[in-house]
């Protein structure tokens, strides 16, 4: 907390003091930043964001490299701060499919160096004795799963920042606006200031780290952070003896029951049960209540019981003891979801110096905070390459609420799902389609997405090739998923004849203007300033000399460079260009992606095919490798002007042909017609993106190329370094000087058979490469050898993997083991930085000497089950009222007729909750039946079912029209309902319990009126009830004691809170309450003489609190005050 005046300027303002914001300021301080201001609109230490109710555990194993490494790194940061306890964690499997997934987890654990072990059900039970081992098939155990204190961590990091860098923190300070100023680059602006409700801060940098509110803040700067607040349900169940006995916050390992989408985590004496199994419940940020409006906190929203019930049932299956314990606390907790389930980190692509650190979980909080801090300091993070989390990855189509909601809706339930590495999206397809769509549709294209672009992955029309080349389906279903034998067939056909590939998804940017070439030089490692008509294939490096981009640049004119990059990197690359572009107007950026369609044509017959539709010189003199030429192509509709670029990513001769968008279909048809006699087939990205390149060892940005590798290691270093300066030059020169720590190699799998004799085909990246003895291979800076790309090399004849191996091991012929699904497969290095297939690149040169080779996944609240006890036939009726559950403030609807319950949950009025508990206790102790009656809107059924879940036997609703009824009207209707119920029972209720007064309207009279109409005695203010024979002894609370009444029954009593401590429902109770039969009594009554005009809040008083001090020395001033008042006798 700061005592200083509100600052008017700062170097960096961080918005949001959750785990990310707090760790971020700590990391910035460590990196030497000063003049840092941290703001949050909520109070500290818990401002009410997702951190405040997080489950706080870290399961470090993830299939995704970024998430896994940052998870481990974050867990270690928590450990370093002493904010962590290793509880261990077990993922249990109920199905064989999950068991397979656990083997996959073991493999990822090996990749990232996390200790892990597979357990039998009996072994699981040894660690978690209260588990029902009959429903599980096994478990995946990680002893280093940890539980952390994210709130305290935040406090400590803030403190560190305050001590090191003079961090100023202002809680309860709301950001109202972000001020930006236009940047010379069109479409861009620059952050200038933050406007808060305490004043405006001019600042150089701003970081948005406010979780679910991040997009709302981003909107203030006219930009967008694609995330949506979503619900994750959690319930606290307990206490349970076996947990209490551990005398520990957490004594048992955390259990993830992913087949049922649940986790169970001990929390002192209780069990926190969390669920990711319900429908995705998404909220608009504007629906999130403020700190004052919220009953608990803004991100702890009222629990929706129906969504949790299926999870409760399955949780009880796994842990029977959960069924009888009380549900003390349950919320719909809010967290952030993004369209692709990866976080949003980095500089906003359209607002300079405005940074995002959003959609981050507690388990990666410290690590991702470090990522952003390093990014801000060094120009790119050092700890890891965050390319999958980079906020600039999104295309415009992904930045809409519609898109985020649809995708979040789709992937939420996959949080604990089994997701195949190649799994495709179902929702929001067809966002960007080529002008070739009609043709590719007609050819039976199977489309995969490349971010927003639809890209044919293989073509059903090539099914005949499968037989021709004798390609088999894969044995194990998982390996067959999102794959087709057609891919291998298309591959072989391309290498034998030719393939034409729809590459419309290429991202094309033009850099023009007098400064374009110089700027392009500055971005690139390799020389760009070459003759017009030539091209440069080059990486773009980070300031530390690692890969940021890998693309081609075509010199189309003296002042015209065309950048061509892949669909997955278009966003990041565009952002990089705009970040570094000169601001003096000498360079203009134009996105030409939708101006051109790229068709690739490669194979031995490619020159012949193209030669039929163009007169241009296609020889190696006329169209040398790396050249780009403007040529006319003859189509049915006339000649079309195109650019042909002789390059190949598949390792066979041919071109990328750039065609104006509208003309592309005609050119496609022309190529297809010309190719018909040459065996040319449409060929998908299955070949282009994997098969072709894996045989050639061609690297892919995001797989082989990441910021942790440099061109020397990737085998992309050229003999000389250009004289011109470029980003990362110094680091690159040092790397060349130092030599590589690792080399990129191609490994061939020698034997595909697993321990069950089935052929396996390694899917996805990150399969660990181990020594022959099965040991992990790590080298400098804790890097580890894993497979970066795996795919079949049909022409080569073996299944191939690319991966980095330490220099001393990287020799052709060396043998290793590659782990896949927890089994080891022997592999041999067949190439280092060169190509396994056609290592002399004869095909690229157009020399075709050989034919293609053979082809190389209430204590007992059970309503209906427990009949009324036989010991006594006492009947008790409890009248309850449904009231809002408010927080620190009450708001009124616009028409002034009711409390604005938009952000509030509802509850039973407090006195009545106790009355109900009392009735249930009596019925349990002495026998009898409890009926609960409410007069209210139809939603009041919620209160009746709650009553049933804590022990009520019968429930009755008298529905109103939703408006508030005056006391006379209410009493008349209630009386009639009671009489109806008594008639049905055949006897009067021995006791009727009313609340002393309702929490909201507080009229203090309904109970009395009802009693009088029933002709029965009533006493209010009751805090003790002892039923007798024909009478009841009732204690009424008075100051300092009790008045004792003895009232003949049937009687009515007005009960006060404090008579008991109401129980929480048990899970069984909740489930049973859903089946309870509710009677509805349609009763109305005439309005009484009290009328509502309007509701309003009392006038706000000016706060003029006198602060006597900020530490214990204020005691002196306090005692002075006490003396002054005269209480210091």
């Amino acid at each position, binding site marked *: 907390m700061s005592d200083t005046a509100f600052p008017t300027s700062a170097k960096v303002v961080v918005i949001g003091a959750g785990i990310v914001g707090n760790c971020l300021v700590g990391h910035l301080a460590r990196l030497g930043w000063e003049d840092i201001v941290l703001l949050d609109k909520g109070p500290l230490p818990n401002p009410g964001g997702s951190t405040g109710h997080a489950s706080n555990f870290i399961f470090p194993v993830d299939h995704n490299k970024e998430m896994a490494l940052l998870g481990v790194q974050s867990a270690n940061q928590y450990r370093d701060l002493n904010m962590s306890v290793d509880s261990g964690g077990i993922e249990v499997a109920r199905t064989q499919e999950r068991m397979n997934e656990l083997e996959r987890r073991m493999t990822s654990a090996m990749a990232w160096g996390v200790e892990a072990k597979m357990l039998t059900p009996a072994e699981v039970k040894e660690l978690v004795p209260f588990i029902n081992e009959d429903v599980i098939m096994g478990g995946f155990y990680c002893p280093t799963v940890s539980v952390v204190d994210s709130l305290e961590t935040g406090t400590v990091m803030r403190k560190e920042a305050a001590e090191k860098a003079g961090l100023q923190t202002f809680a309860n300070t709301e950001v109202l606006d972000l001020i930006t100023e236009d940047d010379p680059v069109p479409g861009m602006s620059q952050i200038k200031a933050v406007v808060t409700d305490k004043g405006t801060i001019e600042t150089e940098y701003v970081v948005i780290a406010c979780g679910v509110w991040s997009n709302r803040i981003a909107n203030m700067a006219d930009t967008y952070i694609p995330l949506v607040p979503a619900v994750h349900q959690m319930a606290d169940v307990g206490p349970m003896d076996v947990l209490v006995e551990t005398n520990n916050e957490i004594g048992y390992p955390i259990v993830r029951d992913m087949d049922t989408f649940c986790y169970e985590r001990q929390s002192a004496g209780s069990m926190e049960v969390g669920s990711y199994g319900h429908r995705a419940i998404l909220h608009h940020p504007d629906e999130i209540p403020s700190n004052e409006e919220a009953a608990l906190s803004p991100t702890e929203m009222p629990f929706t019981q129906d969504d949790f019930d299926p999870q409760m049932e399955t949780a009880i299956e796994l842990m029977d003891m959960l069924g009888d314990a009380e549900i003390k606390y349950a919320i719909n907790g809010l967290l952030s979801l993004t369209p692709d389930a990866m976080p949003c980190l980095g500089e906003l692509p359209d607002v300079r110096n405005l940074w995002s650190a959003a959609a981050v979980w507690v388990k990666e909080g410290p690590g991702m905070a470090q990522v952003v801090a390093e990014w801000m300091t060094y120009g790119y993070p050092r700890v890891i390459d965050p390319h999958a989390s980079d906020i600039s990855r999104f295309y415009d189509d992904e930045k809409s609420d519609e898109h985020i909601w649809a995708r979040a809706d789709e992937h939420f339930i996959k949080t604990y799902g089994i997701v195949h590495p190649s799994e495709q999206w179902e929702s929001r397809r067809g966002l960007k389609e080529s002008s070739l769509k009609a043709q590719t549709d007609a050819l039976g294209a199977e489309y995969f997405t490349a971010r927003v672009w639809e890209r044919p992955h293989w073509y059903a029309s090539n099914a005949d090739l499968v037989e021709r080349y004798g390609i088999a389906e894969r044995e194990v279903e998982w390996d067959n998923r999102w794959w087709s034998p057609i891919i291998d067939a298309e591959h072989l056909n391309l290498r034998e004849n030719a393939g034409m590939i729809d590459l419309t998804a290429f991202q094309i940017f033009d850099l023009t203007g007098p400064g374009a070439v110089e700027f392009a030089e500055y971005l690139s490692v390799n020389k760009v300033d070459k003759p017009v008509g030539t091209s440069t294939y080059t990486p773009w490096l980070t300031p530390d000399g690692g890969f940021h981009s890998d693309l081609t640049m075509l010199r189309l004119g003296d002042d015209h460079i065309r950048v061509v990059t892949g669909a997955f990197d278009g966003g990041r690359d565009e952002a990089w260009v705009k970040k570094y572009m000169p601001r003096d107007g000498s360079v203009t950026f134009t996105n030409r992606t939708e101006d051109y369609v790229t068709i690739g044509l490669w194979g031995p017959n490619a020159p012949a095919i193209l030669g039929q539709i163009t007169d241009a010189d296609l020889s190696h003199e006329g169209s040398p490798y790396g050249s780009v030429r403007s040529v006319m192509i003859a189509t049915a509709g006339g000649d079309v002007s195109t650019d042909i670029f002789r390059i190949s990513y598949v390792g066979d001769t041919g071109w990328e042909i750039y065609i104006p968008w509208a003309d592309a279909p005609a050119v496609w048809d022309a190529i297809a017609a010309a190719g018909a006699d040459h065996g040319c087939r449409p060929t998908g990205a299955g070949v282009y993106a994997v098969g072709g390149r894996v045989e050639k060892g061609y690297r892919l940005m995001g797989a082989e190329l990441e910021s942790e590798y440099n061109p020397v290691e990737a085998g992309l270093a050229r003999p000389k370094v250009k004289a011109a300066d470029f980003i990362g030059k110094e680091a690159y020169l040092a790397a060349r000087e130092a030599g590589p720590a690792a080399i990129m190699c191609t490994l061939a799998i020698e034997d595909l058979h697993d321990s069950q004799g089935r052929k396996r085909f390694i899917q996805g990246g990150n399969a660990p490469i181990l020594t022959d003895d099965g040991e992990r291979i790590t080298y400098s800076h804790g890097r580890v050898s894993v497979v970066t790309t795996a795919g079949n090399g049909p022409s080569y004849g073996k299944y191939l993997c690319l991966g980095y191996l330490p220099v001393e091991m990287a020799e052709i012929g060396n043998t290793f083991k590659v782990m896949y699904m927890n089994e080891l497969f022997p592999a041999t290095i067949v190439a280092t930085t060169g190509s396994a297939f056609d290592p002399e690149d004869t095909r690229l040169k157009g020399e075709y000497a050989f034919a293609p080779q053979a082809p190389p996944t209430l204590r007992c609240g059970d309503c209906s089950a427990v009949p009324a006890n036989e010991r006594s036939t006492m009947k008790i009726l409890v009248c309850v009222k449904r009231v809002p559950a408010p927080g*620190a403030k009450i708001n009124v609807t616009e028409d002034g007729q009711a409390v604005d319950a938009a952000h509030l949950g509802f509850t039973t009025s407090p006195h009545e909750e106790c009355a109900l508990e009392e009735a249930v206790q009596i019925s349990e102790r002495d026998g009898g039946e409890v009926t609960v009656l409410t007069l209210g809107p139809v939603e009041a059924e919620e209160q009746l079912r709650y009553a049933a879940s804590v022990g009520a036997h019968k429930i009755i609703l008298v529905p109103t029209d939703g408006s508030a009824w005056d006391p006379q009207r209410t009493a008349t209707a209630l009386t009639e309902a009671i009489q109806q119920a008594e008639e049905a029972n055949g006897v009067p209720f021995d006791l009727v319990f009313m609340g002393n007064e309702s929490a909201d309207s507080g009229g203090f009279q309904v109970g009395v009126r009802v009693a009088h109409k029933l002709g029965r005695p009533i006493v209010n203010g009751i805090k003790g009830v002892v039923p007798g024979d024909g009478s009841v002894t009732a204690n009424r609370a008075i*100051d300092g*004691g009790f008045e004792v009444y003895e009232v003949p029954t049937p009687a009515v009593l007005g009960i006060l809170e404090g008579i008991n401590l109401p129980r929480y429902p048990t899970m069984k109770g909740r489930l049973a309450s859903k089946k309870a039969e509710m009677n509805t009594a349609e009763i109305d009554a005439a309005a009484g003489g*009290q009328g509502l005009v309007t509701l309003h809040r009392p006038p706000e008083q000016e706060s003029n609190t006198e602060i006597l001090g900020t530490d214990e020395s204020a005691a002196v001033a306090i005692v002075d005050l006490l003396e002054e008042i005269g209480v210091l006798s």
Partner: protein
Amino acid sequence: MTLLVILEHDRGKWSEANDEALTAARLLAGDMGTDVHAVLIGDGGLDLAGQAAAGGAAVVHNVTAPMLTDFGPEAFGESVVQLVAAESPAAVMAVGTSRGNEVMAHVAARMDLPFVANCTTITPGDGMWSMTRIQWGGSLLEDATLDSGDGPKLVSFGHHAVVAEPAPAPGAGTVQDFSPNLDESLARTIVKGRDVQEAGVTLSTAPVVVSGGRGVGSAEGFEQLEELAGLLGGRVGCSRAVTNLGWRNHTDQVGQTGTRIAPEIYIATGISGAIQHWVGAMASKRILAINTDREANMVVKADYAVIADLHKVVPAITAEIKKRKGL
């Protein structure tokens, strides 16, 4: 035209709420253009007639009957009903203490007339009255209307909503005895006995209340508050969160559904100040909040605050007091 104001006493002991009642009655009667008639019910009431007169009552109705030896809501209610039948007042009012509202509710039920409870201001009229009343214990206000047809207006003022003031001039205080005819059955809700659990200062009468919220951290954590309260001759209170956690008894709970306090000073430690709690504390003459959160509701509303950890400040206050007292 008369305004009947029901005064409260515990077997002859004047309730301080009566001062508020008479103040409110004088104002209301003034607006109505009527006299104030005080009503004292049951044994011991007569001794208080003089105080009622001092408070401005023109007439004091001394309501007695054999059954009225002690409080009984039905008997009291019926007595008032019969008095109303005899006197035909334009209105009957009380202060909304527990008993006050209860008796008025019985009157209303028996006469089947509307009753508007816990008003802060009342504007009488010829036919319909308008008023502002309390909802949510005082966190919300309701503007309402009261139409009683031919019957008297039945209202109560919120306890502590009206500040007691001495009457500018005493009333005549003419005592009129009234003996209602009470059916035996009404005795069923007469107090049978009392169970005095503690003598002396209670939470609602303590001059100093030291409260703890969730920030205290545990039941044991309240020991330091007990010590401080003891030194100041006060009582320990707590928030509803604390009661629900089982750290303190409900009898210590300050709040809308707990006890309303009105001490000379209320020291609230580690309490955020949700509205539920605030309404129980707001009648305190002074409030000192001790909290690490400067923006907590309690701090914002308090007269004084110390922004620091209560676990450090409370022992420091205790030490300072002991020092000055030479303990």
